[in-house]
């Protein structure tokens, strides 16, 4: 079973939930798919046992063969290639914008001259390791790279089907989030009881409905803010899986990189209960 932890709004406590859920359950696999800022390792402190560079394919044009016909530009859905035809005897020009490229390979496939080759471009690193019984994998996107979904997909290739898998997803509601949560059996949405939290929760709920993943909500810092999130969940029959109070001690542990359950073991039972609730709900 794959459980992903996501949130529309950033900074609501995704990593706190994902890490502590994993530690409470024990023998799970943990994937940090928030490859732009993978911070679960700060808390898990897994022993890294291996790594692998992650690549995407980008076009490389052989200008000796190119006739500047523009076919590659026509088929590129992301405007990653510009072709300037030559005029008055002058040679044309072709420009590739690798940061816009999604690596689909259409340009190379459709080039009538065979002038476009796909070459590897390094975008990040995948590290694997373990923390006691937990299997750990995370991806780290190189600084300056804009395209995280290919790396997220490559991290997810490590999914161990024999284990319960916990995925720490990036925040938001765009491609990286969808790439991370796709294929999950259940998604935990972490939010906070503020107008911002509610606004972004609604967006995240719409995404999950569209991609048909069952979900529930955890309200973090539940005793501050307003009642908007509670009311919204009630009106829309969204299960509230857990409420975590605003607690200075939790914030302090977080800032020291200490997992919540290490100093507050009473939460272990809560996380286990929530997990049982989710599995029971899914089999019902």
């Amino acid at each position, binding site marked *: 079973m794959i459980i992903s932890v996501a949130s529309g709004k950033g900074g609501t406590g995704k990593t706190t939930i994902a890490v502590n859920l994993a530690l409470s359950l024990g023998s799970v696999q943990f994937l940090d798919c928030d490859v732009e800022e993978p911070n679960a390792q700060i808390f898990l402190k897994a022993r890294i046992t291996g790594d692998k560079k992650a690549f995407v394919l980008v076009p490389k044009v052989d200008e000796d063969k190119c006739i500047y016909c523009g076919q590659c530009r026509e088929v590129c859905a992301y*405007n*990653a290639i*510009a072709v*300037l035809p030559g005029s008055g005897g002058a040679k044309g020009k072709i420009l590739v914008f690798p940061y*816009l490229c999604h690596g689909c390979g259409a340009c190379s496939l459709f080039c009538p001259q065979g002038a476009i080759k796909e070459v590897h471009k390094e975008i990040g690193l995948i590290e694997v390791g373990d923390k006691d019984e937990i299997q750990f994998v995370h991806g780290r996107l190189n600084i300056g790279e804009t395209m995280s979904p290919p790396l997220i997909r490559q991290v997810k290739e490590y999914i161990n089907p024999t284990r319960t898998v916990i995925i720490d997803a990036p925040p938001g509601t765009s491609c990286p989030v969808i790439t991370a949560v796709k294929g999950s059996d259940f998604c935990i949405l972490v939010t906070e009881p503020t107008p911002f939290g509610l606004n972004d929760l609604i967006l995240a709920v719409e995404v999950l409905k569209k991609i048909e993943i069952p979900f529930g909500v955890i309200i973090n810092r539940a005793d501050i803010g307003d009642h908007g999130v509670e009311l919204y969940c009630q009106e829309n029959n969204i299960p509230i899986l857990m409420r975590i109070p605003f607690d200075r001690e939790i914030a302090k542990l977080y800032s020291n990189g200490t997992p919540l359950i290490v100093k507050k073991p009473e939460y272990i039972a809560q996380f286990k209960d929530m997990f049982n609730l989710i599995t029971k709900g899914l089999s019902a």
Partner: protein
Amino acid sequence: MKICITSEGKTLDSKVDPRFGRCQYFIFFDMDAGSFEVQENTSAQFQGGAGIQSGQFVVSKGVQAVLTGNVGPNAHQVLSAAGISIMTGVSGTVKDVIAAYKKGELKAASGPSVGSHFGMPSKNK
């Protein structure tokens, strides 16, 4: 020779659009004939690569100069590859900036004036 001005409207009395890649209209002004042609910018709504597409379109029109408010890095790369001079920081009506260009009052920019996605609606409105 022909020049291109990014415009918020379809006439020479319209204001210059401060964005290149996501401008509303391109006005192609023929300096010799004093006539002009208006084209709606079909790339304005692209999620990404608007500057690249707009740049190629403007290049295909055979212009020598682009007069606009700002040009991003990708569009700048396309326009300069085609040897087009780019005048940024231009504002006012299209008519006025053409007059300023004729008098040689505008200077070509050597690099992009803004970063990527400057012209995205969510960034500036």
